[in-house]
């Protein structure tokens, strides 16, 4: 499963620059809103689901070479966070849905921890 399929099926809004999402494949999924836990627990190349929209998510995502960050509950990163993500090549996606259904749908699509 690639990132384009995930974006389509979950009806996610792409906040950062468009790129060839069909060539990106997440290795696994991870969810937490505590950045200290994310840094310690998320696998490289995973897709990270969080409602945390603070600027620091970009650095954490870059550190872990996260495939994409899905920001839930309509939580919006500010313009400087988005531009920093573009600079770092981090994909930020947004959804009004809560984390639980998003994780559930990803699991149904076959993504695992």
């Amino acid at each position, binding site marked *: 499963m690639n990132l384009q399929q995930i974006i389509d099926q979950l009806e996610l809004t792409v906040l950062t620059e468009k790129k060839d999402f069909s060539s990106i494949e997440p290795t696994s999924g991870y969810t937490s*809103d505590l*950045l200290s836990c994310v840094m310690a627990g998320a696998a490289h190349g995973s897709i990270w689901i969080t409602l945390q929209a603070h600027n*620091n998510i970009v*650095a954490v995502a870059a550190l872990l070479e996260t495939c994409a960050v899905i920001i839930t509950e309509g939580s919006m990163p500010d313009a400087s966070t988005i531009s920093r993500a573009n600079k770092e090549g981090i994909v930020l996606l947004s959804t009004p849905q809560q984390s639980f259904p998003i994780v559930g749908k990803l699991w149904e699509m076959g993504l695992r921890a």
Partner: protein
Amino acid sequence: MIRIRADLHVHTVLSPCAEVEMIPPLIVREALDLGINLIAITDHNSSANIESVQKAAKGTTLSIIPGMELQTREEVHVLCLFDTLEQIKTWQKIVEASMPDILNDIEHFGEQFVVDETGDFIRREERLLITSSDLTLTEAYNKVTELGGWLVPAHVNRKMNGLLSILGFVPMDIPIDVLEISRHLQPAEAYKKFPQIKNYPLLQDGDVHILGDFAGTNEFILNNISIQELRMAVHQQEGRSHRILN
């Protein structure tokens, strides 16, 4: 220059998690008994009891800084410290407008009392104070600074509502210049446990919820008591200094 011992993180009965003994005359007496000359009153998202504590401390050697412990949208706790009541009243209005309309559930969270300088009941704060404001950490930093205040991330070592647990490291988009650690943690241990804070000076406070919580381990050498002087002291500037006593 004067030598000051300070605890910059003290709750009153306005904070639902503080004990009923946290009334102005007892706070003042306990601080004085411990040789503390300066405290900041920092209730959760509110400033309504500060003036009463200032009145209770009148004529003593204890000074009271107006403060607040804000819970940002990210759920990070930060101390917002000011020089004057006018400043904190302006800040209070901004915070009030950013709080959700949730009523306090006394059974679950505890009482939120506004009291006079003797500790007598004035009113109950009906809105729940321990919840997140809609202000982001960045917005709070910018606004507090603009008003002439000092924003200090509180108990950064704590898992619950501590900056390092929630945001991983000190954000670079705002020039935070000091961090607070809990009284249970020595500065050397804090730097060892959290190498990402090695360039930040530390304050240590009691996060006082009961009278027995006072730390009073901040020792300042200052010209006079003001936010600017405290800031200069933690950065060891122009003869001002700060250290954490054992």
